[in-house]
C-alpha cells in the first residue's frame, strides 16, 4: 500500500513487463460499492467502499502449454507500481513451488477489447438518490400500518482488466445491484419478502414492492395448519433460481466423468445426451448467454484459481451462448479445455448467468395466472438455507420462508406454516407439470454470489415437504 495511484492498465502492462515466467496472466479488479441496510423501520448500517485487487498468475517450468507447466496465483489489494514487483515475484515463486498442473495448456492468443483504455466505472451513494426518498416513504407507510420493514440495498460496479503475455487485453465492467425487502406485522407473526435485481436502481419501484408486501401480510391473517407431505406447489421464479443455480454449480464435467456427481453415468462417463425431462410435459431448456439482454456478464473466462469447473490457463477464452439442457436433454456440462478434451465433450466453460425456459422464446402464464388456475395447492414465496444432502441424487434440503400460501379454487385463502423440504433440482426437471413465463429474478439464497438469472414459475405436483417448521 502506497500513496501512488496507478491505472489498472498501467498495472497490467508493468506486471507483464516485470514477469520472468514462461507465461503470465494479470487480472486487475477495480470496484466500488454503496449499500444501505435497515431494520425495524430504521436505518441500521450503510457505507461506501472502494478497492482494487491485482492478481498475477505465472506459468513456469517449461514453455507455456507444456504438460509440466505449473501456475502460481497471487492476489493483493492496494498494490501500486512500486510494490508490483514483489507480487510478480511471489507469483513466480508460487508457480515454481506448485509442481505440475493437471490443467496445463497454452494461453489464449492475442485479443483486445475495444474499450481497454477506458477508466474503471464507478458507483457511489448517489445511486440511491431517488431510491432513498422512496424507501423513506415506504418505511413511513409501513409505520402507519403498524408493520415493520427490514431490508438491504446494494450497488457495486467492478471493472476487470485482464492482460496476458500472449497479448490479451480484455476489459469488462460489471454492474450488480439488488434490493431485498422484508415486511412483518407489528407482532412479527406474519412476514413477507421480495427481492429485486437491478443494474442501476432506475428500475426499482420500492413503493410498489412495499404495497405488494402489505397485501401479502393481509393474506396471512388467516392461518392454516398443514402436516408435512407431498403437495402440489407453485415455485416462484426466485425459488426456481435457488434450485437451478445449485444444480449448475454441481454440474462440472470433470466430477461427472470421475463418477462422483448426479450427472455421472453408471459404468463411466457423463449423462450428456440423456433426457432429464422424464414424463414431464415440459421439456425445459437451461442455458447461459453472456450477452442475454438484462443479464449481461463477462464474455470471457476469468479464473482466479483452477478447480473442477475452471482453469487459470483458460483465462480470456471467449464465451458463447450455451445450452446446458436442451428440450429436456442434458446437452453440456461446465468444462475447461482440459476436461472437455479428455472427455471428448463440447468445450463449454462456465458462464455467469442462467436462464430456464419451458421452450425457446416461450411466453407462458404469469405466477398470478398460474395461481388463478390452481384448484388446491401451495404458493411459495421463497426458499432458504439450502444445503446438499446427497450428491448422488443432488438431494437438497432447505426451508420455506416469509409466506407459504394455501390456494383453493384459484384464490389465496390463507397462510400455511413453514416447511422443511427435501428435493433434488434434477428430479424436479422430470416432474414439472407447468412452467410460467421466464422473467429476471433474484435468488434469495444465492443472489449475493450469482445475481443474473431468469426463471419461470414452476408447478410441481408432488413437492416433498419433509417436516413442519414452527418458524414464522
Amino acid at each position, binding site marked *: 500500500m502506497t500513496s501512488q495511484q496507478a491505472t489498472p492498465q498501467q498495472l497490467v502492462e508493468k506486471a507483464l513487463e516485470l514477469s520472468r515466467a514462461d507465461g503470465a496472466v494479470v487480472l486487475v479488479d477495480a470496484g466500488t460499492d454503496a449499500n444501505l441496510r435497515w431494520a425495524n423501520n430504521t436505518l441500521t448500517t450503510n457505507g461506501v*467502499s472502494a478497492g482494487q485487487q491485482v492478481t498475477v498468475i505465472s506459468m513456469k517450468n517449461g514453455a507455456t502449454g507444456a504438460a509440466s507447466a505449473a501456475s502460481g496465483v497471487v492476489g493483493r489489494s492496494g498494490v501500486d507500481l512500486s510494490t508490483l514487483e514483489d507480487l510478480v515475484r511471489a507469483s513466480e515463486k508460487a508457480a515454481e513451488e506448485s509442481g505440475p498442473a493437471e490443467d496445463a495448456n497454452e494461453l489464449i492468443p492475442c485479443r483486445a477489447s475495444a474499450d481497454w483504455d477506458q477508466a474503471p466505472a464507478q458507483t457511489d451513494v448517489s445511486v440511491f438518490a431517488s431510491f432513498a426518498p422512496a424507501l423513506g416513504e415506504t418505511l413511513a407507510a409501513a409505520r402507519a400500518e403498524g408493520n415493520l420493514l427490514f431490508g438491504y440495498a446494494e450497488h457495486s460496479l467492478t471493472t476487470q482488466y485482464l492482460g496476458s503475455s500472449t497479448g490479451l487485453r480484455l476489459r469488462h465492467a460489471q454492474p450488480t445491484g439488488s434490493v431485498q425487502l422484508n415486511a412483518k406485522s407489528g407482532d412479527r407473526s406474519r412476514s413477507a419478502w421480495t427481492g429485486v435485481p437491478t443494474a442501476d436502481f432506475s428500475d426499482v419501484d420500492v413503493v410498489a414492492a412495499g404495497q405488494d408486501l402489505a397485501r401479502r401480510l393481509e393474506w396471512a391473517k388467516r392461518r392454516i395448519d398443514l402436516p408435512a407431505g407431498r403437495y402440489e406447489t407453485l415455485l416462484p421464479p426466485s425459488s426456481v433460481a435457488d434450485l437451478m443455480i445449485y444444480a449448475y454449480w454441481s454440474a462440472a464435467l470433470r466430477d461427472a466423468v470421475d463418477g462422483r456427481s448426479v450427472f455421472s453415468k453408471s459404468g463411466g462417463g457423463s449423462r450428456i445426451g440423456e433426457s432429464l425431462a422424464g414424463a414431464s410435459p415440459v421439456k425445459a431448456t437451461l442455458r447461459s448467454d453472456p450477452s442475454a439482454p438484462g443479464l449481461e456478464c463477462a464474455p470471457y473466462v476469468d479464473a482466479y484459481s483452477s478447480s473442477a469447473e475452471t482453469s487459470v490457463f483458460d483465462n480470456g477464452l471467449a464465451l458463447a451462448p450455451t445450452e446446458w439442457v436442451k428440450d429436456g436433454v442434458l446437452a453440456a456440462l461446465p468444462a475447461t479445455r482440459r476436461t472437455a478434451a479428455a472427455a471428448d465433450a463440447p468445450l463449454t466453460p462456465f458462464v455467469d448467468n442462467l436462464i430456464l425456459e419451458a421452450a425457446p422464446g416461450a411466453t407462458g402464464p404469469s405466477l398470478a395466472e398460474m395461481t388463478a388456475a390452481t384448484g388446491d395447492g401451495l404458493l411459495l414465496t421463497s426458499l432458504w438455507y439450502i444445503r446438499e444432502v*446427497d450428491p448422488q441424487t443432488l438431494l437438497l434440503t432447505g426451508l420455506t420462508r416469509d409466506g407459504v400460501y394455501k390456494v383453493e379454487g384459484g384464490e389465496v385463502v390463507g397462510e400455511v406454516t413453514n416447511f422443511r423440504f427435501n428435493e433434488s433440482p434434477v428430479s424436479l426437471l422430470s416432474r414439472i407439470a407447468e412452467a410460467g413465463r421466464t422473467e429476471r429474478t433474484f435468488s434469495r439464497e444465492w443472489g449475493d454470489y450469482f445475481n443474473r438469472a431468469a426463471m419461470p414459475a414452476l408447478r410441481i405436483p408432488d413437492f416433498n415437504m419433509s417436516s413442519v417448521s414452527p418458524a414464522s
Partner: protein
Amino acid sequence: MTVDESFTSLPLGDLAEAALSRARDLGAEHADFRVETVRSQHINLRDGNVDGVSDSSDSGLSVRVVFDGTWGFAAGVVLTPASAAALAEQAVEVARVSKPVNSEPVVLAPEPAHGEHVWVSSYRVNPFDVPDTEKIAHFQRWSERLLGAEGVAHVDAEFQAVQECKYFADLAGNRLTQQRIRTEGALTAVAVDEETGAFETMRTVAPPVGRGWEFFTGNEIHDWDAELDALPGLLRDKLAAPSVEPGEYDLVIDPSNLWLVIHESIGHATELDRALGYEAAYAGTSFATLDKLGTLKYGSPVMNVTGDRVSEHGLGTVGFDDEGVQTQAWDIVKDGILAGYQLDRRIAQLKGLNGGRSNGCAFADSAAHVPIQRMANVSLQPAQDGPSVQEMISRVRRGLYIVGDKSWSIDMQRYNFQFTGQRAFLIEDGELKGQVKDFAYQATTTDFWGAMEAVGGPQTYVVAGSFQCGKGQPGQVAPVSHGAPTALFRGIRILNTVQEAGQ
C-alpha cells in the same frame, strides 16, 4: 510471537490521527479507525496433483463514525493521511445522507479506554513461513497414502491458512494492534461402484484450529496417522453399508458432528442482534427472544453452554473486538435455561445486559466492512465426572453413533434443523454393529436439547469449528470454534435420504 513487521511498519499512528482528528473536527460523536491486512492461502490437490494454489492479501483502512446519532462508514485502500482524512469526511457524509431514514439515535455502551496494546494469538509455526513445496508435499504424501488403499478412487486434499493483522484506534484513545493465525486441512476420499454408479465420500474430521503449521506435522494435537489409516476401511464399509431404516433412534453424537448443531441452534440463536430483528431480512431472527432470558428451557438440566473470546487456540479468540472492547467469557445456557446473549456496544447499551457493557462480539472480516455482532466461541461444557463414549453407547438399545459433519440446515428462527454426518454406526443393545448410510436427523432445537440425557466427561471433549460463518449484508465471513463433549440424545427422528429423494 510478534505481529508481522510488514504490518507494524505501516504508518498506523499517523493514519489514525489523520482520520480521527478529521472526524472530530467535523463533529462526530464517535469515530473509530481500522487498518487490516488479511492474508489467505488455499492449496487444493486432486488425486495428489496440484489443482490450485492461491495466495491473496487484502489490505485496507476504514473509518466509522456516529454523526448526529447516525452511523456512517467509509473504506478504501490508499494508506496516506490524506486518504484517511478523506475517508473520515466520506463517512460523515454517508451519515448525513442516511439520517432521514434513521429513527433510532445510535448510542454506544461505555467501555474503559485500554490505551496501547499488542495481542498475538497462540501458535508455534506461522504457516506462511513454511515453503509451499513443503506444504504441498505433505498433503501429496497423505493423498497418496489414501489413494494406495483398496477401494479409494479419488482423493481431494485442501489446506487453508489465514493471517489476520489489525490495528484499531478510536477517539477514546485506544491503539490496539492484533494478529491472529488459523489453519485448516482436510482430505476427502471417494469410492465408486462402477457397476451401479453408486459412490460415497468420507472426509477427515480434524477440525480447523487457531494454531500454526505444527497442527499438521505430528500426532500430538490431532492423531492424523490413526485417522488416515482408518479412513479407507470406513469408506469401503460405508459404500457397502445398508440404507438406514427411518424412525426414532437414540443418538450418541461425536463432537465432530455436534459442534455444528451448537453453532446453528445455539450460537446463532443467542446473537442478540438477531433476536431483536437486525438480521431479520437476511439471516433471520431467533426463537430465543429477550423476554425469555432467564426462563426459556433451552434444553435438559445437563446442558451448560458458555460463550468466550479468550480460550487458547479458539478461532473466535482475540484480545479486543472491533469496537475496542476487551474480550470476556460468560454463560449462555446454565443448567438448561437461557442465561445470556452475545452483544456489541450498541445493543448492550439499548438493552442494558451484561451490566450495560458489551461482551466483545463486534467484528468485521476486513477493513472494507463495518463491524457487526459476530459469534464468540460457543461451547457445550462436559460433565466433570461424565461418562465415556463407550458408557453412553452401552446405555442405548437401538440407536446411532454419529461422527463427522456433512450437511446442515436450520430455519430462520433456529427451530427446525436437519443434519447428516460423515458416518453413522448402528447401535443395538449397547454395542456398535457397523455403519448404515443415507441418514439424516431432524429435530426442533428445544426438543433436541431437551432430549439430551448425558454429556460426556472432559475426556470426550473436542474443540471443532468453522472458518466460514456467514452473516450480514454485505456478506461477511468469520471464524469460530465450538467445544463439545460426546453427548447422548433420546428419541430423535432419523430420515432415509434416498427415500426423501423419492428413489
